């Protein structure tokens, strides 16, 4: 039973009218007649306006289930999709570390602070969320493999460099609108800054002693360059991951380190020797000095005492022989060997 009327009813008739066979409006609160052809259930749609629209659609078509070909269904579907679209694209949540740059039909229309915000729906308003406090890291220089990133130092040496630049977006508008491909730019400018700094330092400074100063100097250079470009970026710092002599020279550098260690060891040993010699001299002369003081007080007595002390210690140990008269030998204890020799024929 095709309804030959247009979507707004037959020509001349009011839109609210219509019903089955021109009987007048159907009571919208009763159950609609069951499905005829087409088992499709209508999708559940929310919104009272929507329901009213659907009710009118039902009335118009005499309670039949609207089929895909019926324009009322299409209008209802499109409107509901639009409402959902507007809801989704009008609300924006900006996290604390983000900012949202709003572009209205292409034109900058403000920056959203963290929180929940409502704007006009897309495609009228477009919000680009940028991380503002989050630190990004750009790694430069080979950190894997054997490809080297050699830089020249002030003393004509080569250093294999690998470093990381930590930066964050300081000004979201500048970051978005001033430069194209700002991330690439950071890498290019960083190479220039780092190598300028390394070229002003000696090889020893870069590989060891003053590495932090080199990194800080390069970071300042980089910040100045990026500010000149209005990049809207703040350089948090540069961390040198590797600053080593070229691979071909690694062994030579080990030789140098070895030589330093050996030389230091020799000097330390000499110092120990010096201490020992000094303390030995001190203690021996102290003994002598004490004895000498006693000797000065009573020379004869001290000498005799020393002599007999020595004899007391020595004589019991040795083979003693006393010669009483020329030619006669009288052995004392311990001298058995000598006596035996004499006794032999």
């Amino acid at each position: 039973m095709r309804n030959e009327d247009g979507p707004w009813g037959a020509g001349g008739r009011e839109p609210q009218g219509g019903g089955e066979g021109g009987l007048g409006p159907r009571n919208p609160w009763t159950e609609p007649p069951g499905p005829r052809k087409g088992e499709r259930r209508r999708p559940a749609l929310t919104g009272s306006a929507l329901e009213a629209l659907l009710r009118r659609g039902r009335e118009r078509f005499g309670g039949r289930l609207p089929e895909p070909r019926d324009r009322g269904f299409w209008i209802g579907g499109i409107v509901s999709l639009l409402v959902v679209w507007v809801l989704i694209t009008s609300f924006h949540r900006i996290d604390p570390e983000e900012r949202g740059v709003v572009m209205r039909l292409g034109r900058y229309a403000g920056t959203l602070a963290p929180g929940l915000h409502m704007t006009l729906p897309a495609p009228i308003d477009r919000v680009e969320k940028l991380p503002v406090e989050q630190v990004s890291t750009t790694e430069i220089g080979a950190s894997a493999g054997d490809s080297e990133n050699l830089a020249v130092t002030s003393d004509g040496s080569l250093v294999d460099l690998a470093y990381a630049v930590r930066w964050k977006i300081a000004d979201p508008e500048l970051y978005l609108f001033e430069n194209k491909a700002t991330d690439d730019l950071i890498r290019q400018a960083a190479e220039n800054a780092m190598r300028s700094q390394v070229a002003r330092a000696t090889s020893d400074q870069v590989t060891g002693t003053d590495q932090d100063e080199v990194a800080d100097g390069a970071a300042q250079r980089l910040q100045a360059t990026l500010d000149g470009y209005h990049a809207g970026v703040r350089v948090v710092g540069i961390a040198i991951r590797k600053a080593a002599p070229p691979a071909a020279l690694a062994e030579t550098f080990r030789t140098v380190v070895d030589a330093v260690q050996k030389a230091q060891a020799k000097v330390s040993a000499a110092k120990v020797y010096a201490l020992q010699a000094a303390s030995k001299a001190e203690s021996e002369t102290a003994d002598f000095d004490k004895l000498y003081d006693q000797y000065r007080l009573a020379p004869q007595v001290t000498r005799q005492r020393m002599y007999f002390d020595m004899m007391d210690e020595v004589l019991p140990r040795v083979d003693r022989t006393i010669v009483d008269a020329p030619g006669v030998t009288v052995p004392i204890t311990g001298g058995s060997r000598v006596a035996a020799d004499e006794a032999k024929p």
Partner: protein
Amino acid sequence: MSVLARSMRQPAAWIAGLLVLILVVAAGSLTVVPETRQAVVIRLGRPVGFVNAWRPGQGVEGSDAGLFAHAPFVDRVVLVDRRMLGFELQDQELGTADGGRVVADAYARYRIVDPLTMLKTAGAEGKVADALSPLLASALRAAAARRPAAALYGGADEGLARDVRTALDLAARHFGARVTDVRIERAGLPPGAATEHMIDRMRAYREQQAVEIADNGDREAAGIRAQADADAAKIYADSYGKDPEFYSFYRSMQSYRKTLTTGTAVILSPDSDYLREFKGGR
């Protein structure tokens, strides 16, 4: 009666058709010019205006970005990037004034300030970098040939970068662009003989350094030992030298203690001092 004829009689169809027509015309006469773009309006092959042209020192507040209305269909709106753009050159081999060869990477920053000229000469935005690249290369070569190799290393030579930028900027105006900065990212020795030579030189220097360190260490250690010996000798001399004869006696007593042990035969004469009292008084 055909469907079309029936539809044509109804105002609803007319309204719908009119709406569609309005939409199509609107789509053809409205263009969104983003903040990052400037636009040239070309009507039937002739330029008639600019939108959101870049001006130095202008921030986002003063821009004319947004929805722009123009004559439908006859106007062609060409969007051109108004941001600062860049391109890179890599592994350029440059000859220096002292006959050295340097391999360099460089980058340039430029901006399209005259989009109309750009369109006339380069034809499209992307072609500008293509046109400027060989110009940058030749400017680098020209500047490098005037300087010694050492001046190029590390991008430390601001004079060279300035020379190159000036030359490139002049050339870029032809394309409706201005070059705002040129920098050398890296400048090093070409791989091969020159690098090997430098590495050999470094190796020899370091080996010599190692020998020097060893020699210095030996010398310092010997000096410390010698000084220690001298200091000890002075302590001994100051002490024992007070009475050399007594020291001789003292030292002899120590020596006898040490050396006269079992197995040694000691012969004592009755006239010896040791037995003097033994013989019975003087």
